[in-house]
């Protein structure tokens, strides 16, 4: 099974936690994924204030300065993993440091 992990959190809290070095277990998460051998894609994102949202309506390209959903909770990273089943995906998601302050949404890939 392949899953997308959408890692999100309150951007301010996450930035503070990051600055305070509370994200220290990140290496351990990566090491665990490497050991499992299922990490296909992993990327951290710049803050949502830098996002540009594109919509095409009636042939016209409309741009919004910001993310597609406004709010304090924003996606800050994503990963695509390959693993046995949802139970393993849950274990991997629960091990991500951001799960302690935000949340990780697991979506099966088509």
């Amino acid at each position, binding site marked *: *099974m392949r899953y997308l992990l959408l890692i999100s959190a309150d951007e301010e809290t996450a930035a503070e936690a990051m600055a305070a070095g509370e994200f220290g277990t990140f290496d351990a998460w990566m090491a665990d994924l490497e050991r499992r051998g299922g990490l296909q894609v992993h990327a951290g994102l710049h803050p949502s204030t830098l996002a540009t949202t594109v919509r095409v309506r009636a042939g016209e390209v409309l741009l919004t300065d910001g993310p597609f959903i406004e709010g304090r909770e924003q996606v800050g990273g994503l990963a695509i993993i390959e693993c046995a089943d*949802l*139970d393993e995906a849950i274990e991997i998601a629960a091990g991500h440091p951001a799960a302690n302050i935000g949340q990780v949404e697991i979506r*099966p890939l088509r």
Partner: protein
Amino acid sequence: MRVERELDEAFRRDWGRVVATLIGVTGDWDLAEEAAQEAFASALTAWRRDGVPAQPRAWLITTARNRAVDRIRRERVGAAKMREAAFLNEPDAVSAAAVDTSIPDDRLRLIFTCCHPALAFEAQVALALRTLCGLTTAEIARSFLVPEATMAKRLVRAKQKIATAGIPYRVPPAHQLPRRTSAVLGVVYLLFHEGYVALDRPELCERAIQLAALVADLMPDDPEARGLHALLLLLHARAAARTDPDGALVPLEEQDRSRWDAAMIDAGTRQIRDAMRAERPGPYQLQALIAACHATAPTPAHTDWARIVTLYDGLATLVPSATVRLNRAVAVGMSTGPDAGLALLDEVGDHPLLPAARADLLRRLGRRADAADQYRRALAATDVAGERAYLERRLAECIAS
């Protein structure tokens, strides 16, 4: 008539097992259910014609499997999935599984999968009642007071999630087992609780008891599973006396104890005694022991409140929740005196039943004005008709005197 009776019996006993086995073999929940349904339907004619088979379950599983194979062959276009192909070529594996008692009961995998924490409570219960107990979608919809179409959609979505999101069909590995077992017990308890607090929906309680019996059976080494079954039996045994003819709640001490279900109390008492033999007490076992104290007291005055307080002490160390603190305070109020109970209620924290508990102890102290005030607050906190009727009666008593 004998064939119909045997078939009814087989349905009650074997439906869950047939479905569980077929899911294990085909990996397809819908196919498993449909094949099981067809097997039971064809049994009526076949058993009338040929007599009831010596091993009804093996007959049903083999027939269901053949129906599933037929269906896949019929519907197969182009390349079949690997799993389907594999089981089409192993015709004897299923019949062997059906008769060989050393093969673990697939219903255990089924209950763990139905109660997977990635599914919502409504989906968990609906799946379990459909696949394990053989309730129809219409019956489940009625139990939850939703239209049948809503329930059908809920079941489809749950099965889709299991298949597409990769929820495994298995008994969880050892490191997840304790947490996942409590999840299963929690689903059954919650189902019962919904019926218990509603006062007028006993079928939810009955269905929860049916599931609890099954789970206790499937997990013979888990004393908490037995404890839960015992607890539900001991609580539900009082059902007939818990409301008056108008549906108003009747408190424990005013209940007509001759209307309690003695056989159910016996079964519950036996089950908790068996559970305690493992000497691994847990929250459900302790609650069952408390329920047994009430269920076995011949009159309210015979209730061993001191023992109930001790049991709540144990429960509070395992489950330090506001509900446990509230119930413990009430028990102290009955054992030591209302003043002691009221003092403890001040330390409970937020709880919707706090005003009702305070009101009752104040009433026992004869502080009618204070009690009336608390009954009014309690009335504002509930919309359960039977509970409101009881609280209004008490409020009227406090104001009248």
